[in-house]
């Protein structure tokens, strides 16, 4: 027997768009976080008009609304924690308009990140934000979490590449924003708002010219601390390459076993560097970086010889979290950010925290940005280990905050970290954010239970009820 909500959706949009049977809804119950909850209904709309109709019906029925990209989010941002309506953008995946001359495109939110760059490469341009999930994750999801990626060291995160947004508000009305409009920067507010302010139905993105020369190099170090010292020294010397990534021994071995990309398997840590620009700048940049790396104890320095080798190194790096699946029963990936001079210190602290809790830890991270991704390895069948992972994860976040950092560099707050948010921000800070929420979503219908601490829990860290396998 269908709920009246599902019936109304079916009447308005038809069975091609609406999913209401429990077996069809199961796929919309979870993302890459551990919690799940079945929605009352889901829609797979063709266009913004259908989104608006569904939003109006949900509003009339008092049902919450959760937008969904590819479900790769690690913080539960796409989990319909209170049921209601899930809007999947799987069908809204087109490039609506491409303007090569002015280097911009209008795309639908369900477009897969990598599909955009692949489609426009022939014109010598690309879309810069490149989260590791870019083969699956969508532009709409990337907008929700202000997704980053290895190359945002030089190019910036999603918010720096979004020029305008079309969104459906709580009343089902369609709006268009542009960063060139006069008035408040609603575009900037919507990016990174994790679906709590409205439903994004189109995105105007900025495209960049492909660089003339790209060099990808790998340096081996004895340990993560010395690799981190090298990164701090590179940034401190005023050199900002396009990417500066570190993988520790555990990750490097897992990645090599899976991808055979040519990383030095016996290194305690590897530094992956990309330098882009003119031929001269790429050559000079490589020389400067290699010199700093050697000064900080690099055991080797090797440049990829051609595009194939460069692609292989990147594919392996971006597949790191997946490769860990081969060696770990379960893992928990953290996302935090510190000022870059604190990198060696924070890596040391993470190592100590993991040892205290008797948990193996792998580190694969955007070192140039100070953006950490410690992977805590555990077996979810062991209750002690699950508790240890939760405790260690929280300790890592507290350590990063104490070092002047923050609790998410690119994954977002979602469901997972909402109680932790009050460790970073005071009630006054959160109240200012709440004012924005009040304006866009006074009924708290858009993605409830995300970002904001639950009132009663303010100021304390909540233990997730269950911690499961995360996949990248």
């Amino acid at each position, binding site marked *: 027997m269908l709920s009246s909500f599902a019936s109304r959706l079916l009447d308005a949009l038809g069975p091609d768009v609406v999913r209401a049977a429990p077996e069809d809804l199961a796929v919309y119950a979870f993302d890459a976080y551990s919690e799940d909850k079945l929605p009352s209904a889901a829609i797979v709309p063709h266009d913004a008009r259908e989104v608006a109709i569904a939003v109006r019906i949900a509003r009339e029925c008092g049902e919450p609304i959760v937008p969904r990209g590819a479900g790769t989010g690690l913080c539960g941002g796409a989990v319909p924690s209170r049921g209601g309506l899930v809007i999947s953008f799987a069908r809204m995946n087109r490039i609506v308009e491409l303007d090569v001359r002015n280097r911009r495109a209008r795309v639908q939110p369900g477009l897969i990140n990598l599909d955009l760059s692949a489609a426009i490469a022939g014109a010598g341009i690309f879309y810069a934000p490149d989260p590791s999930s870019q083969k699956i994750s969508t532009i709409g999801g990337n907008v929700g979490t202000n997704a980053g990626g290895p190359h945002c060291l030089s190019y910036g995160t999603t918010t*720096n590449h979004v020029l305008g947004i079309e969104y459906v508000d709580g009343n089902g009305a369609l709006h268009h*924003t542009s960063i060139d409009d006069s008035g408040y920067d609603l575009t900037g*507010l919507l990016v990174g708002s994790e679906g709590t302010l409205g439903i994004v139905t189109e995105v105007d993105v900025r495209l960049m010219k492909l660089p003339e020369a790209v060099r990808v190099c790998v340096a081996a170090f004895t340990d993560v601390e010395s690799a981190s010292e090298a990164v701090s020294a590179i940034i401190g010397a005023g050199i900002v390459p396009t990417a500066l990534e570190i993988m520790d021994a555990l990750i490097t071995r897992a990645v090599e076993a899976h991808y055979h990309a040519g990383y030095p398997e016996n290194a305690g840590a590897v530094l992956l560097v990309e330098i882009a620009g003119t031929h*001269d*700048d790429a050559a*000079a940049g490589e020389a400067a970086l290699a010199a700093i790396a050697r000064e900080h104890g690099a055991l080797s320095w090797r440049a990829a010889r051609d595009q194939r080798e460069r692609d292989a190194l990147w594919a392996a790096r971006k597949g790191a979290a997946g490769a860990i699946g081969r060696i770990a029963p379960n893992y928990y990936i953290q996302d935090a950010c510190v000022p870059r001079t604190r990198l060696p210190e924070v890596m040391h602290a993470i190592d100590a925290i993991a040892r205290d809790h008797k948990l193996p830890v792998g580190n694969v991270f955007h070192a140039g940005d100070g953006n950490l991704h410690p992977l805590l390895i555990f077996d979810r069948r062991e209750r002690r280990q699950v508790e240890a992972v939760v405790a260690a994860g929280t300790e890592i976040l507290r350590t990063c905050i104490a070092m002047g950092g923050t609790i998410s560099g690119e994954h977002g707050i979602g469901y997972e970290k909402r109680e932790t948010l009050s460790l970073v921000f005071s009630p006054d800070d959160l109240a200012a954010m709440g004012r924005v929420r009040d304006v866009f979503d006074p009924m708290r219908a858009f993605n409830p239970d995300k970002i904001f601490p639950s009132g009663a829990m303010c100021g304390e860290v909540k233990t997730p009820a269950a911690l499961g396998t995360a996949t990248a």
Partner: protein
Amino acid sequence: MIAKRNDALRLGTLSPARVLEPADGVELAAALAAAAAAGESVVLHGGGTLQHSANPPVRYDSAVLTTRLVAVHEYEPRDLTIGIGAGMTLATLRRMLAEHHQVLPLDAPFPARATIGGTLASGWAGPRRATYGRSRDLLIGATVALTDGTLAVCGGMVVKNVTGYDLGKLYVGSQGTLGAIVRANFKVLPAPPEQRLAISTFEDDNRERVVAHVGGMTVPPVALLIRDGFLALRDAPRPEDIDFRPQIVALFEGSESTVDRAMREYRSALGAAGVAETRILTGAAASNGFQDVLDEYVALAGAVSFTLLGRGLPADAPLRSERARTAFPSGGERGVSVETIANLLTGDVVARVRAPAALDAQTLAAAGAAVRSAIGRAQLIAAHDAAVPHVDAWGETPSTIATMRALKERFDPQNVLAPGRFVGAI
């Protein structure tokens, strides 16, 4: 807190009854709360260089100056980040960063007076933004005083951050209508080792060729402007010496070898377009020359003038600037002229309308409307007082105005902050 009266802070026809100079964010927040309790209005002042980029307020009890908010809260050069008070001038910041070979490319006019807070609040986005981003992109955190007396922090001191809403973007360009920025954190950039400014005068007949040739460069400049007017008067001591021909201005930055290569390419592109002569400034002369170009954006000229900055697509910028210059066909006989700067990389078109003192208000307003429709979504950036009542700072109201009004209402329910200054009479 020091209180003094100062008519120099007049905006439109109103002068403030009080002038406050709070010592820090806490004092500033308390002043806003006191104003809210008393039902009074407050206008924030930085250096006053972009005061005409918003309409005059409709009520104006107190002026709050950020002159004392000049602290360096955090600066670790090796992190490439800095946190500073909103009252710090761009020139002071520039000097401090230069000691560590770093820059913050905000590109605002008159940096000796322009403040960080004012530059952010005005939403200023300079000509190098195609390369380095806008002020909104460089800001990584802020502390803002609100009218309920609280200080609200957003963002932080890290370069990647998705921790809560990105409220910094909301305050940038809000003209002090939601809160008062008291502290701003930025990511800064290593200073480019080499900077060169190339200025060439060309014949109007050559315009299309020039645009086409410089558009195809493999190593583009960081700023590329076509100027019609503007500097001409200042360069020429006597009116008969004025060179009315257009100029192309290009700023190159980067390593020496890349800038060398770019300059070679640029000169050969200009040569192919029939441009014979290019003046090249290097080192400090290049950065001073570029600052002169920026200062001209808001410089006033003639008896009555006002300047609009319109946003649009880069490829259309030459066309939109040409339309602006010819937008008011009957202007010539009444002494109205229009000068433009077209930014070929960002699509910005700046248009300065110059009129004789005797021009009637109606004609002045008509000239503004004509130029506005030519250059696209345009904001006023400078104006003589005589022009202010006749040219709205904002022009077209965006379709999302209802949401903007609701934000104003929620952040400043008593309408304390800069009432009437913003778009849609917010």
